[in-house]
């Protein structure tokens, strides 16, 4: 008994098992919600594809449509387009959208376990116990990996209930797991660079964004993973497995190797730094401050987030504009497609622009949610208490933060619309696109208000349930992308169900005014709730 106790307590890995258990216990609901949501959405989408594309002709038409550069940028490398089975369709169009959320989950889980406890001092307490120096890192990674595996396994089980080939489903779920593990490894490295969980998760998110863009460029340039860009992205590796068509397992080795390298790097870096520090050095600040109010303070806190989200939104808009000519050429080359688009070439580009405008808007919604979430974090951290003990009213404190978040989102969308319009005007040689696309971006602004309203309502009335706001943003995103695959009425709570999909649809004022009013009412009710409730740490 004594011997086992002693051996269990020495070495760099001592205590790992207990820490893994602790992490899994803390995360059990989170993991369950992610796993059920991802698996359920996957199964529902596959079933819907099965129903919608029952005939060979409809699948062939879908294959032609999806081969367009605009669709490819948001889908995959296009394996099996000549015989576009439901499996090929799933791997090509759906897999990326399973990988993306699972990857985000992995990045957040790693920083939550690796960096946050160190930043807030919990790790100091843990490390003072008979726990090895490497144990927290190993435990955090194991917990994140187990969460990823749980999502992959449940999705696989769900897919067994569909018509898809189980072997292909196994490969696709493995591909999802591997790409998430690669991103977890990258996040582990990021967690060593910065002393702050927030910076570390931003670095991880930036890695996801870069990986996404690399594979989009690669897949547009060379179908079936023939471009070098595709092979620079973990998404590219996992999509190169071509489940249900080629069924190749070997590309996963690239991902496994990359994970091993980044995890090893994280351990080397972790061994070279002190507890509570990052490798990026801390610069001293000013002796005196110039910040004079809540707006100034919020700008200071949020400026990095605003610039990075803004850059992402504007870059995406520019990318779409640049690709516009390719979309038009593609439709012009394929007379068969004109049946699908009543407006011909113009109609096809308009439909693509409408879809992308919504995509940009969802990014802006995510920014708004982080901004309101940051206000909630000010409250839980106790900093709101310090400010509200000054002659600062609750309305002023919250209103300043909301105004800045809303304005930043609106500016982001308008600039993205302008950049998309300018690049589209150049690539299509059609100056009217500038006006059209700024208008398309502007018409999504009431949606920003709705999301802001939902976030403020939750903050004001049920602040501990703030995660529900993220669920709502995810819901709006899923409905925008896959709403037509889901049962009727499922999209009733999304603003895009009502707002005109410009430029594919004409402008209508009723939904614009309606969404604006709903958004404003939610903001007011939420603010009132916040003013009436106790401050809750």
């Amino acid at each position, binding site marked *: 008994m004594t011997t086992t106790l002693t051996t269990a307590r020495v070495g760099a890995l001592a205590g790992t098992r207990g820490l893994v258990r602790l992490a899994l216990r803390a995360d059990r609901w989170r993991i369950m919600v992610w796993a059920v949501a991802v698996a359920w959405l996957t199964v529902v989408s596959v079933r819907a594809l099965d129903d919608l594309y029952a005939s060979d002709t409809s699948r062939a038409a879908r294959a032609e449509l999806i081969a367009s550069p605009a669709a490819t940028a948001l889908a995959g490398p296009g394996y099996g387009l000549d015989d576009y089975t439901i499996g090929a369709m799933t791997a090509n169009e759906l897999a990326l959208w399973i990988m993306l959320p699972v990857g985000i989950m992995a990045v957040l889980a790693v920083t939550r376990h690796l960096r946050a406890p160190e*930043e807030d001092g919990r790790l100091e307490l843990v490390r003072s116990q008979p726990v090895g120096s490497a144990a927290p890192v190993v435990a955090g990674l194991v917990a994140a990996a187990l969460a990823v595996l749980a999502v992959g396994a449940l999705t696989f089980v769900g897919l067994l209930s569909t018509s898809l080939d189980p072997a292909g489903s196994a490969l696709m779920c493995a591909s999802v797991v591997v790409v998430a593990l690669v991103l977890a490894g990258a996040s582990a490295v990021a967690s060593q660079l910065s*002393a*702050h969980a927030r910076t570390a998760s931003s670095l991880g998110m930036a890695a996801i964004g870069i990986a996404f863009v690399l594979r989009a460029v690669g897949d547009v340039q060379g179908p079936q993973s023939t471009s070098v860009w595709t092979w620079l992205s973990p998404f590219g590796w996992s999509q190169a497995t071509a489940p249900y068509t080629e069924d190749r397992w070997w590309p996963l080795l690239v991902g496994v190797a990359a994970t091993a390298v980044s995890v090893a790097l994280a351990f080397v870096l972790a061994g070279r730094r002190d507890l509570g520090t990052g490798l990026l050095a*801390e610069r*001293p*600040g*000013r*002796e*005196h*401050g*110039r*910040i*004079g*109010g*809540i707006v*100034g*303070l919020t700008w*200071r*806190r949020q400026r990095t987030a605003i610039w990075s989200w803004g850059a992402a939104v504007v870059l995406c808009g520019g990318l779409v504009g640049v690709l516009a000519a390719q979309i038009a050429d593609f439709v012009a080359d394929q007379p068969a497609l004109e049946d699908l688009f009543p407006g011909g070439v113009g109609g096809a580009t308009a439909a693509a622009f409408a879809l992308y405008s919504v995509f940009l808007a969802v990014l802006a919604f995510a920014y708004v949610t982080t901004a309101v979430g940051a206000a909630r974090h000010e409250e839980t*951290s*106790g*900093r709101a*208490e*310090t*400010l*509200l*003990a*000054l*002659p*600062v*009213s609750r309305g002023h404190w919250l209103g300043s933060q909301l105004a800045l978040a809303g304005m930043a989102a609106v500016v982001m969308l308008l600039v993205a619309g302008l950049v998309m319009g300018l690049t589209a005007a150049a690539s299509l040689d059609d100056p009217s696109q500038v006006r059209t696309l700024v208008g398309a971006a502007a018409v999504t602004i009431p949606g920003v208000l709705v999301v802001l309203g939902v976030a403020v309502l939750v903050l004001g009335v049920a602040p501990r349930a703030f995660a529900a706001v993220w669920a709502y943003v995810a819901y709006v995103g899923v409905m925008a992308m896959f709403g037509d695959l889901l049962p009727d009425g499922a999209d009733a709570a999304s603003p895009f169900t009502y707002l005109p999909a410009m430029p594919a649809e004409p402008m209508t004022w009723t939904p614009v005014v309606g969404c604006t009013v709903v958004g404003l009412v939610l903001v007011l009710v939420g603010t009132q709730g916040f003013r*009436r409730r*106790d*401050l809750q740490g």
Partner: protein
Amino acid sequence: MTDAITAAGLVKTFGPKRALDGFDLRVATGEVHGFLGPNGAGKSTTIRVLLGLLRADGGEVSLLGGDPWRDAVALHRRLAYVPGDVTLWPTLSGGESIDLLGRLRGGIDPGRRADLVDRFELDTKVKGRAYSKGNRQKVALVAALAADVELLLMDEPTSGLDPLMEAQFQEVVREAAADGRTVLLSSHILAEVEALAQRVTIIRAGKAVLSGSLEELRSLTRTTVTVGLRDADGAVRAMGTTTGVHDPRRDDGHVTFDVDADALDAVLAALPAFGVSSLVAHPPTLEDLFLRQYGEELAEIKAAR
């Protein structure tokens, strides 16, 4: 004399827990009022109610003549608050945080700020995330004490300060009191309250169990006397039968016992018969007061063993 703070029958519940259960408090204008209680007794909840950050579920409360919930903003111009666990903005330097808090209050006296930074030996260039607990506490202290206010609400303000800084803190609070400011000082460090406060309120399980001036409270309790004696056994026997003497105990040639204030005369007259070689007497400390209030609980704990 008017009161800066009055609270009567305050009730605040968090779910099933009654954090404040009919709490009473009276703080006179211009006094330093000690607010004592163990962790979880309701000190921070009280201060948050006084700041209008929490709304009381029952009872009445008045702060500087106003309602802390309704008139929060106007009242906050006249008071400053130091939380017990200060969190700062991670990317702002300490100096930036102090200046921000000062401006939100409507201006900061640069001379006073510089003087306090100097006295607390605070490096204002360090970013919020890099400060130790004690240094974060100093940032909040400088910001609050540099403000020109009538009332200071301090919730365990010295947690994390080293003894030198604690002495500095006491001096600054004395100066504030000399300027006529009212101070409510919550603490579980008895010596600190004893050194600064004229009156104290002791809170336990959400109720005020004792309140009054230090003098009044001391007269409620006993002086502890330790005497070196040639005939220690005789003294223990004699003291055991004297009214007003409690718990005589022997330790080699020394006898220690507690004496009620009105029995001191009789005890001092009786002792020379046993040959006094040394004598130490100390007045009741807040610790004794505290222990007396919690004696019940201690007895329960002992009984449970």
